[in-house]
């Protein structure tokens, strides 16, 4: 057991999967010689060569498409897109091709690709490097969408994604790459389905995914000091959603807050809210609250950026509101 950073966990998963199966390749901008913008493939170019750790030109749609084509003949490409904003360029091949090929071929072809990308705000990267877009992928049939909150899931879910026969979108987060966690030394896999209770509580459920799980955990600590026992539920997987665990938790706590870094309209929180209405409306003792980003392009100015993005304090205040304390 060693404490490793999120990026090291991703790198280790790449390394092990590439060692295990020569059909596994990595593709992306600057991932080879340069070792990756977030070091997720550091050293792998030297170890596996330029045919398996492929530096691509800045052609997101087509290199993603090449990965998809290769996956149709048995390869297992791990495709890195440097920022989720750039993934918009690859929507044709991801959404029109990868997500639909199994279905429109009547199950006769498949695209077992993994697409990894950081989706979230960092520090003053402004509007074109701060998109989140989780809601866009989670509304596309034929994809799996996962959001590892820490090194254990980042490692174990990438390994599972490589072996899974479906296209898997892994949404990481710029602010989490240096996050550390104890990760077992022996190989393990983390499943691509299922939410997880990451903190037990009895008074309110704080639902998060990706970076917002950490906001929820921080808020839960503060709530504890106020005598409020908050349960934190990490969705982990946005597609397919684990509605069963959401229901169970809400039926236990009777109160719920959903924290998302995405903008609210037609978002992850809206979907969770709808599921709660459908599945456990009568279990609620208070109106649910959504904590989300402002509906604006993310500003450069640090003060404005902070105002646009939810914080742990926003989650804390929101929880007090659900509890009727403010």
């Amino acid at each position, binding site marked *: 057991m060693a404490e490793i950073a999120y990026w090291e966990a991703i790198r280790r998963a790449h390394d092990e999967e590439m060692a295990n199966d020569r059909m596994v390749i990595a593709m992306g901008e600057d991932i080879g010689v340069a070792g990756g913008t977030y070091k997720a493939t550091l050293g792998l170019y030297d170890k596996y060569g330029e045919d398996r750790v492929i530096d691509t030109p800045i*052609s997101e749609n087509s290199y993603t498409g090449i990965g998809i084509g290769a996956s149709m003949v048995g390869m297992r490409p791990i495709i890195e897109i440097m920022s989720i904003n750039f993934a918009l360029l690859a929507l044709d091949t991801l959404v029109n091709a990868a997500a639909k090929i199994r279905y429109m071929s009547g199950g006769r072809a498949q695209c077992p690709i993994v697409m990894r990308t950081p989706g979230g705000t960092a520090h003053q990267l402004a509007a074109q490097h701060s998109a989140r877009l989780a809601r866009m992928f989670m509304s596309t049939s034929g994809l799996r969408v996962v959001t590892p909150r820490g090194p254990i899931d980042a490692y174990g879910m990438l390994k599972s994604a490589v072996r899974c026969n479906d296209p898997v979108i892994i949404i990481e987060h710029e602010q989490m790459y240096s996050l550390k966690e104890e990760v077992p030394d022996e190989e393990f896999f983390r499943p691509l389905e299922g939410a997880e209770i990451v903190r037990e509580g009895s008074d309110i459920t704080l639902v998060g995914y990706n970076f917002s799980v950490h906001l929820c955990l921080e808020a839960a600590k503060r709530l504890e000091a106020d005598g409020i026992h908050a349960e934190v539920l990490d969705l982990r997987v946005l597609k397919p959603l684990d509605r069963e665990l959401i229901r169970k938790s809400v039926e236990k706590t009777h109160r719920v807050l959903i924290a998302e870094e995405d903008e609210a309209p037609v978002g992850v929180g809206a979907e969770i809210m709808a599921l709660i209405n459908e599945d456990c409306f009568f279990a609620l003792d208070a109106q649910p609250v959504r904590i989300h980003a402002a509906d604006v392009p993310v500003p450069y100015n640090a003060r404005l950026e902070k105002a646009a993005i939810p914080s742990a304090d926003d989650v804390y205040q929101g929880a007090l509101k659900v509890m009727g304390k403010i």
Partner: protein
Amino acid sequence: MNDADKKRLLKEMIFFRRFEDRTFEAYMERKIGGFLHLYSGQEAVATGVLEKAMLGKGTGNDYVITGYRDHVHALKAGAPAREVMAELYGKETGSSRGRGGSMHIFDPSVNFMGGYALVGQPFPLAAGLAMGCKHKGTKQIAICFLGDGANNQGTFHETMNMAKVWNLPVLFVCENNGYAIGTHIDRSTAVKDQYKRVCAYDMQASQHDGMDIEIVMEAAEKAIDFVRSGKGPYFIEFMTYRFRGHSMSDAKSYRTREEEIEWEKRDPIKIFSKRLIEQNLLTEDDIKAMKKEIDDEIENDIIKFAEESPEPKVEDLNKYVLDDHPDPRWIGPLQQ
């Protein structure tokens, strides 16, 4: 080419024409829905190129991929005609189990990797298929058929670049029929000769008559040999014409009858029939008998199969969205 092959190829082209004509009738009878794009007029290209490809080896075949005008490419690649017709009828026995329709014929059992509605999409997918062949070290190549209109997509430029940089075994076949749906190439494209556009990527390229199957075959053989020998990608352009509209809803208002008549004189089936008659390989009567035999097969076997096949079950609606039998080690659920 020996005499038997010549006769076989003529018969194949006539079959493809009659197959498409029959789908037109079925469309009018509303047996076929959606969009239907017919290949009539362009038969020499798919037939001639794929005649020179590695086929008949099932999953050892060369990989073939194309756009939405895909019936004939699928048939020539080896997809059973019954299944292609059943797909158009939306039946469970169809090539794509009734889930794809006319624009999305798939038959991976013969490495026909699909028809796609987004015209620029097969470029990168084809390069990916080629990357797979190269990685596995097989002698297979990928062959991508698309029209001239597709070359105005960004994926054309992105893929030509990467195919060349990575020296991928892929043959891009441009079927230049002069129109992107209803817009003439002169009005949409700065460079009229499509093969010249890939010189920007230092790629081997050539342009040929696409109405004469013997010319197509000769050019395709050279291009395929080039690609298969590991020299990298090749872009081959064939000048051709589609006799019908873009799809069934096309009144062809954008082109003149005179232009159509000029091209109809160069009908690939007429050209090749005439040549085989001149070479005393066939008579007019032989060709009539050939057509009769084909029509009987289409009606009594292919259409019958499509008509009588069952539709997909509604309870199977969610089948094929994701892997229906996933390995629980990777998928879960998560143990709490």
